[in-house]
């Protein structure tokens, strides 16, 4: 159905972005395909052994109301619980948020931090790629005409791991991130040394950013303020924000550091249990 209309077809999941964009005449289409009836896109399966498979059309509330996800992927729950208000969470999906490819998309950094990958189906078959490679620019993603993001796959959480996402907004809800940071950490069995970490940033570049240097420099370091500080500095270096009505570039770089520290503190606390 999608392939028939090429670029003039779009998929409808929760509709919380696309209906607004259509109404605002941001683009014109011939066909809007409701994908909520597609079983694979509504799949939600989660276990400590298999990890998490999240259908691209699964609305946010199903994530944060799921006890297993809450215990295994609390970082993802953070993001699902702060998108829009309750009404939005009743419809909006993580897959839709990713396809919308907004630099400030609130769920994308935590997908990157958790090492999630995208399962894409299309006329030429299926392919899988890391979330950090999915967005290509503001509102742009790798999907070709007729291709569809079907699901997101999360690896099983490692022992002694924890993750957190937070953003900075002027209000306390119902706002777009001025900047956001996601962090996941895996600790050694001593629970004081970082084995590995992944840090990602929102709203500080044309796409959500995987802050590789900040992530890598943490490996083998103590889970302490000094390390967080170093990672924050590296995250700031990775940020390439613009100035707009939501914040200046200087403010956003600064916030990238502040939020990276805060995300790491909480992620480590969670990993330490």
């Amino acid at each position, binding site marked *: 159905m999608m392939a028939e209309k090429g670029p003039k077809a779009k998929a409808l999941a929760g*509709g919380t972005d696309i*209906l607004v964009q259509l*109404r605002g005449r941001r683009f014109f289409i011939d066909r809007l395909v409701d994908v909520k009836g597609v079983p694979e896109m509504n799949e939600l399966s989660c276990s400590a052994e298999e990890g998490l498979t999240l259908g691209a059309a699964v609305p946010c*509330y199903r994530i944060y109301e799921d006890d297993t996800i809450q215990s295994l992927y609390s970082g993802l729950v953070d993001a699902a619980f702060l998108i829009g208000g*309750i*009404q939005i969470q009743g*419809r909006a999906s993580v897959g839709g948020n990713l396809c919308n490819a907004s630099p400030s998309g609130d769920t994308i950094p935590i997908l990157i931090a958790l090492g999630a990958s995208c399962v894409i189906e299309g006329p030429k078959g299926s392919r899988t790629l890391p979330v950090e490679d999915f967005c290509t620019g503001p509102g742009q993603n790798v999907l070709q005409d007729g291709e569809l993001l079907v699901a997101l796959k999360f690896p099983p959480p490692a022992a002694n791991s924890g993750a957190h996402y937070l953003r900075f907004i002027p209000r306390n*809800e119902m706002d777009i991130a001025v900047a956001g940071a996601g962090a996941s950490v895996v600790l050694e069995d001593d629970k004081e040394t970082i084995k590995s970490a992944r840090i990602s940033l929102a709203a500080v570049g044309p796409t959500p950013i995987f802050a590789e240097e900040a992530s890598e420099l943490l490996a083998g370091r103590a889970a302490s303020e000094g390390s967080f500080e170093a990672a924050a500095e590296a995250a700031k270096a990775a940020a390439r924000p613009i100035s707009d009505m939501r914040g200046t570039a200087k403010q956003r770089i600064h916030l990238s550091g502040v939020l990276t520290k805060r995300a790491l503190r909480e992620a480590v606390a969670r990993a330490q249990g």
Partner: protein
Amino acid sequence: MSKKIHVQTNINGLDVDLLCESRQSLLEVLRDVLNMTGTKEGCNDGNCGACSVIVDGRLIDSCLMLGVEAEGKEITTIEGVAYTHGLHPIQQSFLENAALQCGICTPGFIVAAKALLENEPEADEGRVRHWLAGNLCRCTGYDKIVRAVLDAGKTMATQSKSES
């Protein structure tokens, strides 16, 4: 004008057959097709909650759902909140707490509060404020609305205890 689509749905307990265009939102269908104008449009982009309705038990903004998506769903709007012979405790509480001024946001708040309190009548102030953050009110400063919802929750908790 584009072709109309037949939709079968259930609104406030009544089966409804309707015709709508594929581009019409559920909000437009309620207001313009069914003349159920209790659900209000405040922004038409999911940022004010005035058009809140409950679809299959889930609180949503009806401006962000298409009318055709209502097929097979159960929908509750403000018109379906009161009982046949009296007000819902949330409505009564809004009146007694003077929790409305101009009243345009009131249907959305009452529907949102119903979606919360029917599952969590004992929700505390923090939970109520968080739940209602998707509903804007410009008149009251929220103080009396939050009190009304907390009071209604107490009434509903007592009622459900006495029923069980």
